[in-house]
């Protein structure tokens, strides 16, 4: 409690300070009035000889003029009055200093005579203070005076004054703040001047200070440091004929200029009332909501309103405009040549297939059995059940069936028309069949060829390959010779003369992949000393002593006489499946398992002259026609494509390749379509055998 009280005390004292300061301030305001009022009392007798009036203003209080005295000095000088108000405590002469300085002294200052003023003996402690507070009815109006160190009890008038001042009122009760103003300078022209003071000299001499300032500004304006006030610029909205004199020469500057494309015009779906088909169904809407904003076909959902007044503001309007702005200045522009072609013009103009006849067009014959491979003389087919069958094409009658006792991989008729022989690859054995279906002379010449073999038989013996005559039942079926290979044989092929026979045993690791057999002398040889990749197929050049070996990625051409490689054809495909040599000998086609057919012109380059991507699936077999300018390819997609391929004797003219017919018919079984394809030697007919166990003839 006591602490609180002391605080109150402090507060009070604070307020007192403020009161005093208020007095000081208001004093200057009301000085004139006070002076006039009181001056009449005190100064009256001294007035006559005074130029300097000193007034002592006294606040009326019970202890006389002991509290404050304001010494007001009015200096009257030539009619103008300067008031100087000094507040002064006349009991203590130390002046307006912090009284703490006298904290440690027994006195607190000096009186007018220069004697020390001693601090009153103060033996009040907190308890006394409290008792005072409780008992003294005037405690609340008791104020401690720091200057004299005494306690002063404020009188009623003083309390009233403090209250008034705290309320912000004038200190003087009688002061009328609303008294009418006496207008000294009124609009009325008075008879006499207010002052009669002559004008100063400086009033009619140009001011040097001003001149200095102005010259500074002038200098600054001259130097362009500051600009004088500009005339109001209203040119923003003022327009004139900008293009009054157009010159097109500027246009040349803008050669690279690409004008921004105009914003696309709205379609029906943007209408506020679109036809019903343009509105989204629920699914479309769900899809639209799911899609990312960049994937959406329309940037908004079409909506229908029954009348114009119901159309709301478009929420993304500002966004769209802003995006357009961004496009205009941020989007890189590029001149794009829009391909504006008629798709029909892209299709190459080829000679009509009609003009390129004959070629096989329709299927005319088919027979069902398990066939893998066909070869034509009259016609031979072979099957997985270990038989080789012979048909006569003319009558389509199965003439013979030969049991060979094992799955047959490949068969080939002897191309020599004077000899009727068939080579059959069964496992690791190549069988030479003499079906004796031809006329007598041919049979005789065949016999002669085979007998020739016998003579030579004894002379030579090759290591890995053994020749042996067939005996007994096999001989009665027409099998005359057996050539035993070390590994399974995949392909057999004849030389055009009909004496040589090549067999392929694909193997990664061995150089024993190809054998060339001479039937008349019963001799075999392995032409290669090195393994140059997996051999896929081989073929003889029809005229010259060349030998084609198709490996996985390339076709090598060997000169059999010089025993060297002459060319290496890059097929540009992953895996060559088959190969055929043009009867002229200058062109080769290669089918590959990656759906391509490459045509090589040997005179042109080692790269394909043309890549034909006709098939959708692996190309299994390719074939040239012996007489007609035709070639065909068989593929796993179940189609045989017959193409016209004219080769000109003129070396400058490139071969003309035109697809003429897509022959379908084979059914795809186990992802295999057509396995082998062969042309009729004289007619424009084609035989194909498929995985659906059929042989089909297209004529």
């Amino acid at each position: 409690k006591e602490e609180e009280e002391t605080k109150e005390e402090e507060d009070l004292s604070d307020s007192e300070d403020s009161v005093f300061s208020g007095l000081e301030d208001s004093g200057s305001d009301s000085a004139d009035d006070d002076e006039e009022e009181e001056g009449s009392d005190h100064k009256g007798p001294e007035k006559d000889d005074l130029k300097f009036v000193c007034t002592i203003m006294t606040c009326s209080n019970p202890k006389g003029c002991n509290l404050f005295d304001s010494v007001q000095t009015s200096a009257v000088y030539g009619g103008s009055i300067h008031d100087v108000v000094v507040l002064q405590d006349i009991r203590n002469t130390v002046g307006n200093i912090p009284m703490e300085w006298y904290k440690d002294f027994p006195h607190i200052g000096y009186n007018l005579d220069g004697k020390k003023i001693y601090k009153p003996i103060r033996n009040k402690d907190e308890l006394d203070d409290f008792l005072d507070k409780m008992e003294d009815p005037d405690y609340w109006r008791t104020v401690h005076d720091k200057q004299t160190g005494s306690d002063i009890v404020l009188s009623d008038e003083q309390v009233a004054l403090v209250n008034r001042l705290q309320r912000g009122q004038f200190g003087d009760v009688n002061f009328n703040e609303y008294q009418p103003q006496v207008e000294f300078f009124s609009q009325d022209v008075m008879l006499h001047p207010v002052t009669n003071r002559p004008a100063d000299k400086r009033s009619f001499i140009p001011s040097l200070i001003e001149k200095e300032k102005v010259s500074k500004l002038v200098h600054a304006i001259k130097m362009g440091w500051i600009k004088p006030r500009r005339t109001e610029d209203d040119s923003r909205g003022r327009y004139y004929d900008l293009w009054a004199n157009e010159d097109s020469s500027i246009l040349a500057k803008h050669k690279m200029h690409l004008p921004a494309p105009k914003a696309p015009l709205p379609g029906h779906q943007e209408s506020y009332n679109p036809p019903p088909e343009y509105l989204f169904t629920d699914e479309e809407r769900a899809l639209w909501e799911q899609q990312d904003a960049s994937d959406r076909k329309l940037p908004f959902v079409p909506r229908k309103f029954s009348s114009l007044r119901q159309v709301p503001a478009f929420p993304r309007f500002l966004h769209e405009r802003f995006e357009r702005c961004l496009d205009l200045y941020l989007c890189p522009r590029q001149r794009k040549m829009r391909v504006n072609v008629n798709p029909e013009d892209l299709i190459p103009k080829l000679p009509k297939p009609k003009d390129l006849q004959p070629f096989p067009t329709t299927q005319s014959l088919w027979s069902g059995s398990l066939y893998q491979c066909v070869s034509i003389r009259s016609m031979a087919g072979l099957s997985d059940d270990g038989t080789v069958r012979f048909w006569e094409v003319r009558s389509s009658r199965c003439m013979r069936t030969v049991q060979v006792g094992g799955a047959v991989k490949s068969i080939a008729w002897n191309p020599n028309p004077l000899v009727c022989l068939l080579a059959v690859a069964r496992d690791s054995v190549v069988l030479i069949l003499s079906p004796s279906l031809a006329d007598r002379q041919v049979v005789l010449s065949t016999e002669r060829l085979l007998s020739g073999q016998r003579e030579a038989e004894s002379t030579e013996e090759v290591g890995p390959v053994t020749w042996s005559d067939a005996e007994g039942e096999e001989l009665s079926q027409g099998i005359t010779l057996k050539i035993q290979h070390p590994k399974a044989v995949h392909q057999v092929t004849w030389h055009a003369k009909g004496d040589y026979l090549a067999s392929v045993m694909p193997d990664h690791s061995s150089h024993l992949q190809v054998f060339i057999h001479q039937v008349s002398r019963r001799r075999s040889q392995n032409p290669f000393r090195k393994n140059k990749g997996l051999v896929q197929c081989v073929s003889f050049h029809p005229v010259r002593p060349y030998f084609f070996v198709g490996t996985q990625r390339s076709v090598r051409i060997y000169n059999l006489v010089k025993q060297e490689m002459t060319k290496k054809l890059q097929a540009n495909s992953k895996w060559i499946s088959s190969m055929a040599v043009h009867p002229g000998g200058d062109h080769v086609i290669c089918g590959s398992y990656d759906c391509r057919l490459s045509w090589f012109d040997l005179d042109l380059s080692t790269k394909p002259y043309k890549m034909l991507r006709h098939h959708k699936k692996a190309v299994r077999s390719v074939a040239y026609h012996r007489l007609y300018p035709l070639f065909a390819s068989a593929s796993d997609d179940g189609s045989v494509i017959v193409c016209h391929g004219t080769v000109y004797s003129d070396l400058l003219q490139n071969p003309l390749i035109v697809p003429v017919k897509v022959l379908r018919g084979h059914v795809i079984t186990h992802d295999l379509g057509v396995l082998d394809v062969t042309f009729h030697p004289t007619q424009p007919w084609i035989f194909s055998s498929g995985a659906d166990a059929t042989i089909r003839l297209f004529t």
Partner: protein
Amino acid sequence: MGGLQKKKYERGSVTNYITRNKARKKLQLSLPDFRRLCILKGIYPHEPKHKKKVNKGSTAPRTFYLLKDIRFLLHEPIVGKFRDYKVFVRKLKKAYGKTEWTAVERLKENKPAYKLDHIVKERYPSFIDALRDIDDALCMGFLFSTFARTGKCHVETIQLCRRLTVEWMNYVIASRSLRKVFISIKGIYYQAEVMGQLTTWLVPYQFSHDHPTDVDYRVMATFTELYTTLLGFINFRLYHSLNLLYPPKLDIKAESELKEEGDDDDYAMNSECYLEKLSALSTSLARVVSTAEDEEAQLDKFPVEEEDLEKMEAREMEQKQLEAHKKLFEGLKFFLNREVPRESLAFLIRCFGGEVSWDKSVCIGSAYEVTDETITHQIVDRPNIDKQYINRYYIQPQWVYDCVNAKILLPVEDYFLGVTLPPHLSPFVEEKEGDYVPPEKLKIMALQRGEKPAHEEEEEEEEEEEDDDEEEEEEDDEVEEKNLKKLEEQRSQGKSLSVKVTAGKVKVNNPARMEQDEKAEEKRLAIMMMKKKEKYLYDKIMFGKKRKIRETNKLTAKRKAHDDAEKSKKKTRK
């Protein structure tokens, strides 16, 4: 072999391009200033043909500017103004910091400003160039003129935009060059043919915008700055081409009439009053030389050869149609109810020569009252109206728009009060062969040809027939492939079936069909022989075509389903 080793990326296309950052450094500008400069000068990035080469082997995404463009910017006087402005801001800040108010005042008075006249002239060396690029300017102007006059941008900009767009609309009215309108969900599209240039602009609906936070208004304001300048000069030139006063003045007669009313103060302050009067679009503009009537420019007839004669006739026909279109609403008197968009409709009707008025309390400049007996059409957008006059049509606003697009006065029956409106179609869609055409469009086309609209039932039948036709056409499109497939199927089936001996059917060889098949086969074989590149292109084109057909089919199917549903509804009601 002498000589230094050639360094990479020092010649060729690299030297033509410069990255954005390098350009910025070269110009010594901050990024916002650089952007502003690019916007004003119309400099945009270019996409190099071989990006990796230009990017010095890197594949980092970068924007490239043409070096020539940037060099061109180096000499731009406006760059200096940008720098001045930067200095100005710095000085102002300093003055504020030192509380030197006089200095602040003085600086503010001397705020650097720039004009874009020379840029406009430079970007658009000829007037036609400027007209070609006016679309975006108009869109932006109309958008900014709808902004509230607080916050987002300077009030002066908004006022200027409003003034310029009003001037533009007045010009379009005076020249009668409006061609198409379209009410979309975004706003109203207008298309005018000004000096042979088709100009399209979009006016948003009169609602306050809720300003999104992810839109940079500074960019838009910069664009607007340029566009207002451009638009002003274009307006000036256009007004002068029509012998109109610029800035536009109302016709003296009209002005006096308006003055008689004398209650301008109700609408706007004095300063804005004139603009308001102009934007009412109700009165014609004053001309420099008052001519009684424009002489219609007759096409001169030259002695022409026979080939050109047809062309000439066609052109004349077109001209006649255009003239008729321009006078579409001539002689009609419209009254707009207060709930319809006044500005748009007044603009439209005046563009086509109609008279238009509205309630006095809606806007300044109404010419006559509702009670006027000579009013022919009253445009109303509410379900019903209490007091109806017998001698006028009460129609919904869509009628006006549809009439403008159809270029004829459509029958008003479909647009009466409370009637379900026919769909509003976009006039900008020009259907090519094979595209989907909504049946409503076909109907309008029939009306344009002068065929009388038949009774509803017949119409429906017609529609059905049309549908059938369409379907047939589609079938024709697909015939090629289908035929082939059929043939193949027949073949394969024939083969697999003929294992058994069945009674042979007589195959009728249709020679036409055979020929078609042959041709199709030929085509397919030729396609096989195409080069890889061409094949790719061909496939792409064909894919696009097929997709188009698919979309058309989808729309047709949807429409049919909708119509069927409608019909069944009708039946159940009956």
